[in-house]
């Protein structure tokens, strides 16, 4: 099993940039709590599994950049998106 670091790093950076922009709206009645993000992570893992080892076809049987992107979004939301 090989981990190619290029897509992991770039996917994480792109996800982190988007995640830092996810901020709560004070006047809105809709709240997206941690349950929503848990569902998004589960859906993202399923989609990544269906995509297979994209884009390198030789590493883990998941789309590693896709997973790095969702991890970046969650971490960006937790750190700077408050």
């Amino acid at each position, binding site marked *: 099993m090989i981990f190619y670091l290029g897509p992991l790093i*770039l996917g994480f950076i792109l996800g982190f940039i988007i995640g830092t922009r996810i901020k709560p709206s004070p006047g809105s009645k*809709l709240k997206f709590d941690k349950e929503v993000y848990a569902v998004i992570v589960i859906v993202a893992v399923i989609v990544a599994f269906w995509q297979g080892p994209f884009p390198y076809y030789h590493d883990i049987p998941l789309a590693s950049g896709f997973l790095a992107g969702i991890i970046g979004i969650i971490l960006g939301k937790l750190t700077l998106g408050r």
Partner: protein
Amino acid sequence: MSTILKLFVFPISLIIILIGINTILGGHITPGGGFQGGAMIAAGIIFCIIVYGLEESPIKISHNFMASLESAGALGYVFLGLAGLVFSGFFMYNLGVDLYHIVPQFISNLFNYPDPTHAGIIPYLNFVVGLKVLVGLSAVVITFLESDKLLGKDEQSDNIFGEDEQ
């Protein structure tokens, strides 16, 4: 917008954004690259902005953020091109990741894309183009939505032909 849309659009837009990120990452070996992936990320952001409105959208993009991200993308593209010009004499020459053995080996291994194509700097060009495009396309929609506020119009002046309502 309806409540169902407001419940479902934010998670779906995040998945659209992730598919855009995946398109950018595979841009050197599959159809689509920085522009297409950036457009997909912008589509996710625009989806949120249209459904929730500019004020209540969970993905908030400020003008300073747009300016800094687009500048970073453009500068990254220019620097990658200048690296080719400096080390080989040709602008945007694909140097690979070791830059004529100047870069230390562990950094070269970190940023190497060891696929059969040996894409070199192409994935990084896709990355910076994606940054520019995601901000640029989002900025167009945000500017259109803010146009009433910028022009000082109120909600009653939606009649673009200036005709009286009958």
